[in-house]
């Protein structure tokens, strides 16, 4: 088979993935300028998550990889989710008032919506 005959198959998957990723990036950028309140950040992060999944599955070829490789990738995401969950369990549950009258804890003040030392 000639080199020219093979070329389209080589380009199809990356180009389709690229078009989808660019459209998602433009959607994320455009949505950031529409006033959606707290949903702006949520939407941008969800789109970023979808882009990462598409990139890992179709460009890093995780979808065609061995089970061992997929297990390693999943383990990485599992450990990082533990790290986020345990850290926020601490920070989001700290009381701002110090019972002993000492300096207040590093916490999130829910009433005024800002952090305080």
């Amino acid at each position, binding site marked *: 088979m000639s080199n020219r005959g093979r070329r389209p198959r080589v380009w199809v998957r990356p180009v389709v993935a690229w078009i989808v990723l660019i459209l998602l*990036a433009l959607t994320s950028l455009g949505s950031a300028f529409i006033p959606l309140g707290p949903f702006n950040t949520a939407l941008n992060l969800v789109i970023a998550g979808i882009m*990462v999944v598409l990139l890992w599955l179709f*460009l890093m070829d995780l979808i065609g990889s061995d089970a061992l490789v997929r297990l390693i990738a999943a383990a*990485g995401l599992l450990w990082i989710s533990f790290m986020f969950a345990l850290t926020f369990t601490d920070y989001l549950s700290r009381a701002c008032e110090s019972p002993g009258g000492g300096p207040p804890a590093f*916490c999130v003040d829910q009433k005024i919506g800002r952090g305080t030392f």
Partner: protein
Amino acid sequence: MSDAAAALREPWPDLDRQRQGVTVGIWLFIVSEVLFFGTLFLGYAVYRTLYPEAFRIAAAETEVFYGSVNLVLLLTSSATMTVAVDASRQGMRRTIIACLALTVLLGSAFLIFKGFEYRDDLAKDLLPGSQFPLNPPQTQLFWAFYWVMTGVHAIHLAAGIGIVAVLTWLFWRRLLPIGSPAILGVATYWHFVDTVWIILFPLLYLVDRS
């Protein structure tokens, strides 16, 4: 000697096993990198939760134009890198070399745009310290994360550009067989660097733009 036989290295019995070894090895490295960048993302998330208003004020100063152009450049470079990998499976030597060279150019263009962006940031004195122009003081936290996260990302990208350039040269000079699984490891690393920018983009450039 066939291309497959030339690409085979000790201690692998065949090329499929060698590819598996490269893929598993690079993914173990990628997971360690996920946790490395994860600590930065976590620190950012904690401080943004504590100081949402300061982060909103600070993030308004980032240059969304440069961030967006660089996102497009890296996404495109990931596509060209994938074409190079698929072409290596087909033995398409010229396509591999062209796509790897294009990947190096796109990565270099990212660093050039990043340099322009850093120049503009420094012109606005957005380096945390005594001359920092924004208030409240917690805005400096955002910019500390900005410099560290984009700086570490740029170092990773510069390393990637160097590795891809060496690989291109090895293929071009026929010092490495076209079927070598080395390209799989390099490509996976490159895509990971792209992944980090996909996450950094909304965290640094899209905060409260409306």
